[in-house]
């Protein structure tokens, strides 16, 4: 699970502690972990996680963690990994951002929402500093106020 969370953080640009906090009552990662494994199959699933683990070394002395993460992400999405490998990583990004698993058919992408919980947890809403339609944890009158800084949503300094 740690490698799955680390991989997800690198691919989404969110901090691991934001998408999968240590004290995690929502635990959407478990739902996504199971879906990702079921959809891409065990061989590719463990290959991707193993590659991430290998690449996930501490940052160099002249490198920040975010710079290191950027490099890992680029390596995971490199074409040399193979089309299916890269598409699987991209689908994982889609899953985290939308809460839905995509099906790509030529130029057409359709998707199916995993659950009501995954709908509310989509990272797309966080990046927009907003909330899903029909589900809001903001207080009355929030629309008249500035949202929190983006870093408050992603957990990263971006």
């Amino acid at each position: 699970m740690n490698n799955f969370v680390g991989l997800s953080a690198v691919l989404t640009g969110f901090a691991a502690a934001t998408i999968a906090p240590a004290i995690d009552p929502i635990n959407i990662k478990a739902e996504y972990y199971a879906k990702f494994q079921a959809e891409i199959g065990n061989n590719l699933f463990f290959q991707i996680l193993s590659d991430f683990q290998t690449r996930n070394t501490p940052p160099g002395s002249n490198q920040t963690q975010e710079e290191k993460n950027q490099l890992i992400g680029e390596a995971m999405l490199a074409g040399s990994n193979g089309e299916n490998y890269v598409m699987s990583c991209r689908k994982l990004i889609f899953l985290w951002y939308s809460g839905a698993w995509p099906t790509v058919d030529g130029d057409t992408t359709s998707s199916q929402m995993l659950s009501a919980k995954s709908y509310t947890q989509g990272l797309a809403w966080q990046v927009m500093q907003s909330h899903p339609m029909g589900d809001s944890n903001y207080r009355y009158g929030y629309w008249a106020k500035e949202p929190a800084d983006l870093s408050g949503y992603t957990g990263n300094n971006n």
Partner: protein
Amino acid sequence: MKLTFKALILFISLMLLHACSSKKEKKGYANLPPANSSDVVISSTIPTQITSTGDPVTLESLQHDFDVLSWQSFIALNWPANADGTPKENAIFGANESGMTVWQSWKSSREIFLPHGKKPNAWGEVENIPIVCDSISAEDLEKGIITLTQVGKTPNVLDESGEPFQTGPLIDQNGNYTRYEILTNEVMFDYIVDNELYSYEGQKAFGKDADFPFSDPDTGKEGAIMVKAAWIKMEGKYDASQFHTAYALVYDNPHEQAKVKPACSLVKVGLVGFHIAHKTKGDPQWVWSTFEHVANAPTQGEPVNRNFYNYHDPTSTYPVNEPPARPWNPANTGTTPTKVERVIPIDNDAKALNTKYQAALEKMFKGSVWANYELISTQWPTDANNVSDQTGKPAPTFLANATLETYIQGKVPQTSSNCIACHNNASMTNGMFSDFTYLLQRAEGKEIKEKK
């Protein structure tokens, strides 16, 4: 006095354990050894923070710690009270099932938010009862007063008979409406009075978000606490010896529903549901504890193994968790009883904790009615200072009391009962945040009345 020697030894032991646990509280949460012995504390002291027992600290260990805090709070608030509402320190918990408890001495919402935004009476001064209650004979009222409180306090007025958001009333097995009341402690009351938040005009002048004082373990100061209680009339199918009881003025409130005529009666009622919301230093979203009588309702997916449930007749063909048809009127007797089932099971750790506490309460005083109550769960913020989610990501995500949120149980976001997420939307009459209480919306004002 039924107190046995064994019970006395247990009481002393528990007091010593409480002293130990209090010392641990001051050290903070981190790196404390497992302290199962501190799980059961029977004391009149309201805890101001959890005592962390997890090593490592996990979601489950923290949930356990908050559940322990809930039980300690439940006991402290239900502790027998002196005339001024302070706990009787030498009382044996459970020895007087119908005596006034600490929280029953608090101010009810009816006493705080008065017609025309009038300033409420000071703490300790009784508010007038509804005029229609004057029809109760002084002799009967006196009997109620003596039996209920022995301190001359007017019996509490139960003036609510509906669940939140007009989801409906809850009908007991005798066909009577369940009654509700909301009360605040003195800290919360003082904040409302000092800032004139009891009136529309006062809130308008206040002009900012409400921010009630919190309980601070560093200073020992108690913060804002509010409770909500659900009661049923002790008659017919109910055995009063199984409940914490009180005499109360059951008031049919014409402001609740159309065509309700004011009426009042002094009746013996039994406690079936109890919410506690407590603002603490580490939990600005408040800690939400909820308790029920053990015989309220079976849980879906679990055996129906009691001979009698307060809100469930297995032979009834009435749809489960469905309110009665409108129009609703608490004066209607003989309404078809609600068939209640608990939708979210009590988790195993809370069940084990309930068993521990119930055993300790029974040992402390044989036949204690308090052993007939159980914790459903505690909701608390896991990430209290999260800037993008002011609910603080509560755990568990959903929590409902079968007597207080009967019809909104479940796990549907924005629909099912979630204490913190729901109260996060609460505002005052001026639209400003009311700090997780809907009570402030009850404020009336001269202007509003004049417009009508």
